[in-house]
């Protein structure tokens, strides 16, 4: 019974680390500022129609339409769990190819994969890489799955504080 509580605590801490990592990198590389492809513009306007923020809607649309730092974080933690540190480098190569297929410059994906590789290799004696996979799923669930209106309002506030958007 005690092990379950410890593993749930580890999963929540890993989820918080992943959330901070991918939101800061995505916001710094300008996802809320403009829609990269035509589909992201439509999703941003539909999120604005239900009472959300427009720039938070652009953020969510850009995550759907091309693999950004969120995809880099999940796939790099998967490959770190299976192969070790070399998996992070392979992930950076494949995510760059996927970004270029979706007509995106590809700065956010590769740098997100490399930073989560560094964080995991620092924290490996305390939290195993298995917990980062489940933590990343919980982190993406709070943005895309739970409540679109309040999530876009929160993302718009973060984007305004970091001078991207408005």
């Amino acid at each position, binding site marked *: 019974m005690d092990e379950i509580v410890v*593993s749930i605590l580890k999963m929540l801490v890993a989820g918080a680390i992943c959330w901070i990592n991918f939101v800061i990198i995505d916001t710094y590389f300008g996802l809320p500022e403009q829609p990269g*492809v035509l589909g992201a513009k*439509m999703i941003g306007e*539909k999120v604005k129609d239900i009472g959300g923020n427009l720039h938070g809607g652009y953020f969510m649309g850009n*995550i759907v339409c091309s693999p950004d730092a969120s995809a880099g974080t999940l796939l790099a933690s998967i490959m770190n769990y*299976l192969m070790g540190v070399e*998996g992070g480098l392979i992930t950076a190569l494949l995510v760059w190819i*996927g970004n270029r297929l979706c007509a995106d410059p590809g700065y956010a994906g590769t740098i997100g994969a490399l930073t989560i590789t560094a964080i995991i290799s620092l924290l490996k004696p305390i939290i195993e890489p298995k917990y980062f996979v489940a933590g990343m799923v919980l982190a993406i669930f709070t943005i*895309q799955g739970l409540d*679109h209106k309040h999530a876009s309002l929160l993302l718009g506030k973060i984007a305004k504080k970091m001078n991207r958007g408005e």
Partner: protein
Amino acid sequence: MDILEIVIGAVALLMTLRIFLERSRARKLLYLCCLSFCISALIALYVKSPMGGITAIVYFITSTLSSNAIAYTIEQTKHIE
């Protein structure tokens, strides 16, 4: 069964039901993206070898490409209808 797989499975089940019951077309794509994250994590936790990791990466990138095409078509056909 592990506790991690049960948590990811619960999230995936909730996402499947919300895709089936949602009315708006654009917000179905957001739930579909979250479901794709869950399946990619489950593949890597089920097959414990490097080939499973390559499968998860290829699956996730092609799924993103597909939803990109669907969003582009919704934007294009909005003027015609």
